[in-house]
């Protein structure tokens, strides 16, 4: 049995404040900052947002090993690797060349290049960190419930999407078997080997997928799915005062940081 991320796993452990927020508030709060960060060019703004995102996550999310690895290792490492890579790769003729950092033969790394490289990598890191606020603390089913309850997304769409989550590990397993079977038959070769090979996987995979989807649809119909305009919600995901406060605070802080003279 391969280990797959379980989109359903119920969280029954101690809840922190982010776990109690409406998923939509967690998505919409950082959204303006995420969008505007794309257009920011300096070093300080992304750094501030990165720091803010870290504070919110560390204060409001359960600190599991995964969270620790992402925040403590993956993200900082990404910033350094990406920042240095960008600095080296950037076209030196179009930047500020007043400060020289390193010189190897005819090649020089300028301070301007480093600044642009790290501004870019920090910007990306800040966007990722802001997205993690919702990403680390929201389950798929809760997001679907909130979308149905607050955004008035038709429940037929939302819950069908949720059921489709289950298809992913199944299809991955099926694809593995098909690849095995084709390898045994010696299906590769020819000039367009790779293309032909993948095309060969598509037909049996689709045939199986359509059959499976039809069966699931019948089983859902048989349990009155979609019969009524709405359905009972056992798990209410309300939009409470604290969600509004979180949303307002996020937007206000974003506005302040983005407009402050730096």
């Amino acid at each position, binding site marked *: 049995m391969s280990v797959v991320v*379980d*989109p*359903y*796993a*119920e969280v*029954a452990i101690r809840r922190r404040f982010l776990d109690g927020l409406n998923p939509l508030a967690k998505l919409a709060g950082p959204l303006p900052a995420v969008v505007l960060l794309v257009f920011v060019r300096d070093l300080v703004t992304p750094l501030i947002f990165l720091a803010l995102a870290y504070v919110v996550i560390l204060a409001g999310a359960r600190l599991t090993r995964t969270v620790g690895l992402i925040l403590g290792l993956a993200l900082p490492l990404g910033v350094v690797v990406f920042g240095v890579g960008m600095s080296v790769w950037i076209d030196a003729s179009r930047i500020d060349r007043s400060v020289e950092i390193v010189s190897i033969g005819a090649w020089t790394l300028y301070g301007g290049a480093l600044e642009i490289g790290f501004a870019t990598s920090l910007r990306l890191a800040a966007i990722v960190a802001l997205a993690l606020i919702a990403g680390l603390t929201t389950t798929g*089913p809760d997001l679907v419930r909130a979308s149905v309850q607050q955004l008035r997304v038709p429940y037929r769409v939302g*819950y069908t999407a*949720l*059921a489709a989550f*289950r298809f992913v590990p*199944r299809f991955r397993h*099926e694809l593995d*078997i*098909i690849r*095995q*079977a*084709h*390898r*045994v*038959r*010696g*299906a590769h070769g020819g000039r367009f080997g790779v293309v032909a090979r993948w095309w*060969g996987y598509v*037909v*049996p995979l689709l*045939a*199986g997928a359509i059959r*499976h989807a039809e*069966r*699931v*649809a*019948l*089983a*859902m*119909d*048989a*349990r*009155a*799915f*979609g*019969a*009524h305009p*709405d*359905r*009972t*919600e*056992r798990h209410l995901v309300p939009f409470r005062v604290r969600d509004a406060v979180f949303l307002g605070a996020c937007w206000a802080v974003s506005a302040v940081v983005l407009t402050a003279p730096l």
Partner: protein
Amino acid sequence: MTPLASGAPDAPGAPAPLARVRDLAVRHDGADAATPAGATFEIRPGEVVLLLGPSGSGKSTLALTLNGLIPHAVPAEMEGAVEIAGLDARSTPVSVLSTHVGMVFQDPDAQLVTGTLLDEVAFGPENLRLPVAEVLARSESALRQVGLWERRAENPDRLSGGGRQRLAIACALAMGSPLLVLDEPTANLDPAGIEDVYVALHDLVRHPDGTPRDRAILLIEHNLDAAVALTDRVVVLDAEGRTVADGPVDDVLRGRAEELHAMGVWLPISTLAALRLRRAGWVFERLPLTPDELRTAVTASAGPVTAPRAVAPAAPTGEPVVEVRGLTLRRGRHDVLHDIDLTVRAGEFVAVVGGNGAGKTSLVQAIAGVIPVPRGTVLVGGVDVARTDSRGLSRRIGFVFQNPEHQFIAHTVFDEIAHGLRRQKLPEAEVRARATGVLRRFGLEDKAEQHPFLLSGGQKRRLSVGTALVAGAPVLVLDEPTFGQDRARAEELLRLLRDLQEAGTTIIVVTHDMQLVTEYASRTVVVADGRVRADAATAEVFADEALLRSAGLRLPPLRQALRGVTHPALANAIRLADLPGGAS
């Protein structure tokens, strides 16, 4: 055609039928003929009705009409009448019918929608817009009835096959329907899972003291040995799907067994055994239906004095063709296979059995070089599998996957067969001649230009066997070839394998179906926890019930019936063919 046994006018005071089917004919879009063509029967509260019929008689189609999925969700032309609790199923929406008829389908995985057992069971009542308290009450009661309440917070993926099917039953119960329709609920399960489901069903329809409850069940099942003990009434469809018999188990199964058997309807193994013994002169006042009844019957009477059938001499076997030495396979952190030693000789028919996750598929995949193995651990035809390329391997051993579609790579049936020959770099004339020969041998001559995906299920299976053998492999390995198939198709395949074996091919087959194992395999290898637990003649393995149980397996029905029977003609029989009264 015999007249219908029932259909008498309602006796005053008898409960109104939950379902009434009259002259039902259904033609699927694109199909030539209607199957069923004229089904008529009723189901009353508290009844367990078993619906039988030869393969292709439209049993599953009929099931889908009962809650309106046909014609509301599946396009089909429908004639006759289906009435559910007095409602016309054709004009009543599925959501209303779903509160009268709960459905359980064959594939447990295709019935799961949510992430926990509790959410899954609550899904139906939620769709009915019931108040939360009612949803929870129904969910708890349904989960308790199938013994899964304690596991309500778990992800359904963590349940065994039998557990998931019990969950599907709970989901149907939570709809509050007095009638449950189960369509081949155990076809995808291993023996332990089948037992699991039937224990749950038994508790649903009988009080602990054995008296019936009010719940009615319509059961479509090929595994009659498990089903018949629950059944009150049997409805039989003929090949076109017309009701030809409808009555209590005793009248239909016991009284008309020979007739049904001739029609191609599957009967319990115990009944088939009794029919055979009857021809040898045994007298059965009541034809036995279950292993227990058969045992009681043959123990009570002395039976005619027949000499035990001469034990067929073991098929002459030749040189070892497969040799496994000290094979250990790791996946991730744990051993999938542990220190396996196994030798298969030319001409043998070997069954590899074991519970789910025992490692039997990994073992045969390692033998056939489907998954990589350490050097020097697997020899096939004298060459090391780990050092042979797939072209060389395909001349020595052929592998057939569970789903034949997975291994089709060409656009016509002919090219599918020819592919294996072209890989051997044979001249095109020889490719054509040999491929045509293989097509003829597997009865696919007239399908040569068709796309493999458009073949029928049985034809696809034959084609996959053909592609595995075409390069001249003397050894054929099959992974669960009968999984999810009806009995007729499974038998057809097994007969094909026996023919191949008689023509000299060595057969290794992985399966869950214990009766098929005993009928066909000369040798059985039991795998449990990645180790070979037993490896001996089939008769010897199936004489040891404790061993089978500990490996997650069960005795096949015939062996179960004859356990402890001392009559010399029966004591050691494990196959129907071992019983006196043969040549049928």
